[in-house]
């Protein structure tokens, strides 16, 4: 059992490592993709060589970042098979389809037109080149669409039924999978947050150049596009964050409770604006979950349900199966102990199904299949040793969620300020206090990256211990490997990706520095 836990932990660590590295590069690809497409469109319309130079500068950064995103991405796809082989069989019928569509529709579009974008300036017409740049950006977003659909399905499995003959879930509606509320909100929330990161990155680089009193015109042009894309991104990210919260409240109430550190829920539930958790707090120990907190009345009820009176269950309520309607009447939900019991009964029925299937008893198999599917949402609970095992890491989920929201609010203000500078060029350049904005813009880049990573940590840590919500815990999803094997590849990945990240940062810094030294558009004091 200890070995099993080790394999699970190392497999999770390896997936988390590769996913976090991958997500360092993907949002910049998505964000810069749109930004360079807009820039090239302006160049196409104005024929201004300055816009061409600006477009090419950001295109170089895009190319360097794209390559390492591709490198880290291939590992993620194949890791589903190498490290999560049980999972691959259990849901391959559903999860594989978006991945295949991604390959056929998105990856080929991206990889074909990116070559035209980089090498086709003198080989294709300007219009074809512009179309290629847009298709590269669209291809990147389409790639994100399909993998996010797959991820959303793991958070909210829908459009499928369990087939006990094959011991796996099988798709019954592609539309339900692709257009589930979780998939739609996840796609827009994620891609639009990448626009924000792209915009923040452009602002940060320009902030550095302006701090050095160089590249004024280039920065002016870059900020014009970057700040707008960033502002549109953060406004829409906030809006889609709202729909994400509603979906989480409905389909993953335990995650929502962990995000808020809420152990006992209530009607008219307030939301924590800022707080410090009690580190010794455990479920059902009666301790106050917070050492300190500042709350907004009714906030969580409204965020989760758009009804400020609604009851929002806490961790203990969910485990006990307690919920109430707006009139205060108790709603019968199932406790986790009951779900564990039902999960075990399901396993017994599956074993009976196997016997009936071998003896070709169709009447028995049909009735057992119907009974299994009627209660299948409890299947994964059979693998839990105790109800508390289904509680995610509350402090990590809580703090990353609040960090994400706080930085998101800050980014909204930052982008507005950036636009103010864009349209007040004299202030941007000459006001002494503008220097503080330049520094702020530089600091904003790592903040935005942390914000983006925090969003993923909330999404993924908040649904633990499930690989597939309610159906398959991590310990059942893994491959038959020894912990030492996975540990070895973990460290190899850690070293290789870190070395590549260092090179990536080195090249990007050099490109920025080179631009700063060679571009003669210095500030005219």
């Amino acid at each position: 059992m200890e070995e099993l836990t080790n394999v699970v932990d190392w497999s999770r660590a390896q997936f988390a490592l590769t996913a976090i590295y991958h997500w360092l590069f993907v949002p910049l690809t998505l964000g810069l993709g749109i930004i360079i497409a807009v820039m090239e469109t302006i160049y196409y319309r104005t024929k201004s060589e300055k816009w061409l130079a600006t477009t090419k500068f950001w295109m170089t950064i895009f190319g360097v970042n794209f390559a390492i995103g591709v490198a880290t991405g291939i590992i993620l796809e194949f890791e589903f098979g190498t490290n999560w082989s049980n999972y691959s069989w259990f849901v391959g019928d559903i999860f594989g389809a978006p991945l295949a569509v991604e390959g056929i529709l998105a990856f080929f579009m991206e990889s074909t037109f990116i070559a035209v974008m980089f090498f086709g300036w003198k080989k294709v017409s300007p219009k074809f080149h512009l179309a290629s740049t847009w298709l590269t950006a669209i291809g990147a977003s389409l790639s994100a669409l399909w993998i996010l659909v797959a991820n959303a399905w793991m958070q909210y499995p829908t459009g499928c039924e369990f087939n006990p003959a094959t011991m796996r879930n099988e798709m019954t509606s592609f539309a339900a999978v692709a257009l589930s509320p979780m998939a739609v909100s996840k796609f827009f929330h994620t891609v639009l947050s990448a626009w924000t990161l792209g915009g923040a990155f452009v602002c940060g680089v320009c902030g550095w150049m302006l701090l050095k009193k160089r590249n004024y015109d280039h920065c002016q042009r870059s900020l014009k596009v970057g700040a707008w894309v960033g502002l549109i991104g953060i406004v829409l990210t906030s809006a889609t964050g709202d729909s994400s919260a509603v979906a989480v409240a409905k389909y993953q109430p335990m995650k929502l409770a962990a995000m808020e550190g809420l152990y006992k829920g209530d009607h008219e539930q307030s939301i924590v604006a800022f707080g410090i958790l009690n580190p010794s707090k455990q479920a059902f120990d009666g301790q106050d979950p917070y050492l300190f907190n500042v709350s907004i009345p009714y906030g969580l009820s409204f965020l989760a349900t758009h009804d400020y009176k609604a009851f929002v269950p806490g961790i203990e309520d969910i485990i006990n199966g307690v919920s109430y309607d707006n009139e205060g009447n108790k709603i019968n939900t199932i406790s986790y102990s009951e779900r564990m019991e039902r999960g075990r009964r399901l396993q017994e029925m599956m074993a009976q199904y196997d016997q009936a299937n071998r003896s070709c008893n169709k009447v028995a198999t049909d009735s057992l299949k119907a009974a299994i599917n009627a209660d299948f949402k409890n299947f994964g609970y059979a693998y839990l040793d105790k109800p508390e095992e289904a509680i995610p890491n509350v402090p990590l989920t809580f703090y990353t969620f609040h960090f994400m929201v706080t930085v998101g609010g800050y980014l909204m203000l930052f982008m507005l300020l950036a636009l103010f500078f864009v349209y007040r060029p004299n202030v941007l350049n000459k006001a002494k206090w503008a220097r503080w904005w330049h520094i702020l813009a530089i600091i904003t880049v790592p903040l935005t990256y942390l914000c983006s990573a925090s969003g993923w940590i909330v999404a993924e840590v908040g649904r633990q211990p499930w690989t597939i919500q309610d159906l398959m815990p991590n310990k059942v999803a893994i491959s038959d490997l020894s912990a030492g094997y996975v540990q070895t590849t973990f460290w190899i990945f850690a070293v290789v990706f870190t070395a590549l990240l260092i090179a990536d940062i080195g090249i990007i810094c050099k490109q920025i520095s080179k631009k700063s030294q060679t571009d003669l558009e210095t500030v005219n004091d």
Partner: protein
Amino acid sequence: MTTYNLLQNYWWLIMSVLGALLVFLLMVQGGQSMLIHYTKPDKRALLINSMGRKWELTYTTLVTFGGAFFASFPLFYSTSFGGAYWLWMLILFSFVIQAISYEYRSKPGNIYGSRFYDTLLLINGIVGPVLLGVAVATMFFGAEFTVTKSNILNVQAATISQWGPRHGLEAIACWKCLLFGVMVFFLARTLASLYFINNIDDDEVNRSQHKLLLVNATAFVVLFLATVAVILTSPGVGYDDSGNAQWVPLKYLNNYLTMWWALIILLLGVVMVLLGIGKTLLKADYRGGIWPAGIGTVLVVLTLFWVVGYNNTAYLPSLLDVQSSLTLRNSSSSEFTLTVMSVVSILVPFVVAYIAYCWYKMDHKKLTSDELDNTDHKY
């Protein structure tokens, strides 16, 4: 044959096409393995920039091949990838280091210097084709695994696919698999030479590639004949309508004889590969050898996938428990999923068309040193 069986066969055809295109596109890796023959920076730059405009297609085809396998035959994905862990991890590592090397090698600030990235390209150029060949060879010669789907009900040990303790290293040590891998490596180098001759307008590169073509093509032809002989004399796993599997002597030879059309296509493919190589070697000014050789390669690989999967053949025989062997029938996705994806696959010709158009637009003018001197973006 039921609709479900037809869909399974259709998706094996798609996998065959993707696999065949991937083998053809491994010419990029073959080209990378030739960097060792060039010391002059300008000639290395020509080679790298010629391949660098194609590497993403190979990469994307590999990723799509994996994704399509996951979607259409998830039990293979779960069994082979999770089982032959080291084999697939080595393949993946070799492709990870390739992905950044083109973009980083000539950029200032790349920390490790261009030689470092060229070495990474060289490693991928050798390891990639050899190990991918080894992985494909396990489909013919089998692997050490068992599949017990009911394991999922075992709370303490729920893994359904279990592999031998060496987790893929045994395949690398198997001489038949290694023979297959080395054959793929020399095929990749042969195709790379034909591609360089077609794509690069430089006399010195052209001359050196003709010499390399002679050596690599000779090695490839010898290894190909040996590999085909081993495959045709090897047993395979066949299964009946109820799914019972058993080892069958000369299974792949019988499949070629039963599916005579596959044999004709195999022979046609071989002739086209030889035509592409022979004409390039014999006519100094002939540069189009990559086309017949490339098409021939695709045809040959297609038939290899067909004989390993069609005609009631297990495409991944189990050396530990023959009933665990993977077949098109016991490892595929459901009929519904295969139908949905078949609708999506209608778009494949459109995708192929725009790739061909872009490739034509980018390559109709051959690569020269002058172009590299006057371009903003080069590797």
